[in-house]
């Protein structure tokens, strides 16, 4: 039996420590990992918990992130509760195996501490790695602070392991801005947390010798498509389970999560849509602007995959102008979040004006002042009745103004 850890009602934890405590409390059987900044402390701490008797588990040190995720696939197929952590380049090296894990329907939990992708090399936070995983078939949930990184990591196990889902789950947090920022965190006791997550329920596990199974079969054009269709349906329908798990978590803790978080949106004319810590910083800006009489609000997809099209549409359809913020180099297109939000809003009668801001690449600071400026620009679009700037702009970049793609509506 693993030893219990006494936790205070309020701890001061950074996002990494919070996530590692959640892995400990979930009593993860196997962590197969290749540590990388800024997610290193998550697996480092798990290793220490194993060594000190706080987890009955195995920490498997491998030779690369590709091997780390392969180890996770093996251990999950064998029938264990499995987790790992990675960032950036490590995430990129895992990508091939991410698709294997989701295709085999293995409920691995990966705590991803978001970091920019080289080149140029950069250890700080942006969402390039999160976006790289968006077609990989994993559930992707995003935390905006350390408390959420803890809460949602516990939820991630319960979501992925539900028999109606059986899909791997990524739990995202912002590199440094969450992972290395200590804040007040209210943890559950070990018993409460484990009871919430529940015992691991195996499904067609390879270590069941009474029912030998093959994992990773080859299928060509005659079968592959049906399997992918089934997998997509499972991911789309995981939303109901996500809602259930969030509801159960609220009952236990009083802390409420939704697949789309909305702040000050009841009467909002202008809105920012964003992910990560930016959501909270934008809330500060919206609060200040409301004192100046601008009806500003913030909308954030808590769940990046499956993308909550219905709820995004509900949250935003009555606004006039929306800025969608993408913290990832878009490289030849609009930002991914802009595309999803625009798709969700295109079928509304009101069809708000939607623009795209690229910002914060490689950890560039995103300030309250800049958020206010962006809100005010949306207000100008709303007042003019059409988009008065290029649709895509770069926020906070040095040099001449950079923008792409012009509207054909209204001017």
């Amino acid at each position, binding site marked *: 039996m693993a030893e219990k850890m006494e936790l205070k009602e309020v701890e001061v934890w950074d996002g990494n420590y919070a996530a590692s405590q959640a892995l400990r409390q979930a009593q993860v059987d196997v962590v197969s990992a290749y540590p990388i900044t800024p997610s290193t402390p998550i697996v480092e701490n798990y290793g220490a918990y194993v060594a000190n008797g706080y987890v009955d588990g195995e920490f498997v040190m491998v030779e690369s992130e590709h091997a780390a995720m392969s180890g996770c696939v093996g251990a999950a197929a064998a029938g264990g509760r499995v987790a790992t952590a990675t960032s950036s380049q490590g995430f990129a090296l895992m990508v091939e195996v991410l698709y294997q894990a989701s*295709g085999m329907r293995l409920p691995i939990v990966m705590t991803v501490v978001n970091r920019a992708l080289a080149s140029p090399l950069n250890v700080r936070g942006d969402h390039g790695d999160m976006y790289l995983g968006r077609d990989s078939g994993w559930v992707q949930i995003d935390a905006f602070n350390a408390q959420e990184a803890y809460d949602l990591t516990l939820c991630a196990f319960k979501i992925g392991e539900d028999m109606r889902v059986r899909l791997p789950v990524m739990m995202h947090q912002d590199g440094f801005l969450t992972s290395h920022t200590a804040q007040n965190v209210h943890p559950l006791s070990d018993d409460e947390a484990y009871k919430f997550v529940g015992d691991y329920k195996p*499904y*067609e596990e390879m270590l069941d*010798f*009474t029912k*030998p199974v*093959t*994992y990773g079969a080859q299928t060509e054009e005659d079968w592959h498509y049906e*399997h992918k269709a089934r997998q997509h349906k*499972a991911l789309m329908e995981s939303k109901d389970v996500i809602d259930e798990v969030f509801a159960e978590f609220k009952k236990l803790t009083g802390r409420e999560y939704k697949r789309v978080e909305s702040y000050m949106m009841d009467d909002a004319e202008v809105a920012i849509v964003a992910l990560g810590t930016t959501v909270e910083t934008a809330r500060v800006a919206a609060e200040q602007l409301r004192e100046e009489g601008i009806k500003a609000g913030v909308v954030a997809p808590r769940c990046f995959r499956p993308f909550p099209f219905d709820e995004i549409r509900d949250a935003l359809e009555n606004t006039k102008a929306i800025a969608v913020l993408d913290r990832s180099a878009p490289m030849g297109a609009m930002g991914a979040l802009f595309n999803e939000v625009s798709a969700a809003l295109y079928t509304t009668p009101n069809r708000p004006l939607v623009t795209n801001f690229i910002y914060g690449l490689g950890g560039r600071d995103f300030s309250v002042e800049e958020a206010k400026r962006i809100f005010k620009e949306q207000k100008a679009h709303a007042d003019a009745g059409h988009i008065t700037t290029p649709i895509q702009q770069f926020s906070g970049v040095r040099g001449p103004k950079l923008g792409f793609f012009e509207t054909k509506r209204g001017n």
Partner: protein
Amino acid sequence: MSRGVLATEKRGIRELGAEEFVGWDEVTQGVILPSFESELKENVSHIRPEERDYSDFNSYTATVASWRVIKPVYNRDICIDCQNCWVWCPDTSIISRDKQMLGIDYDHCKGCGVCVEVCPTNPKSLLMFGEAEETEDALAKWPEKKKKAK
């Protein structure tokens, strides 16, 4: 109980590639494929292949006999049970029991001739014949022992 080692109930009962195609709602979750229809009561290595309840996902129940144009014929009178062919056969199609060679699994043999190549007896205990050749005729045509050149 099955009909015997050389012709079992479940082996080669369907043509490989002629599966019934089903829709996305019927494929297995995660492409996880069970090898057997029912739960095993004991370690599968203790159950003889012809007695295992193989599922349709197992290649044991599929046949590739039609792929073959020439076939190996086995001559029990010459065989020394060295197991060379059993070791080398790429399709596990040499049937051997208690180190005694019993014959060929014609449901899975593709007629590659490797078993004949590796047979050490003189004359060989396995020889390739046309697919249509009757076994008795083949055995009647078996060559004599070759004398070593001095």
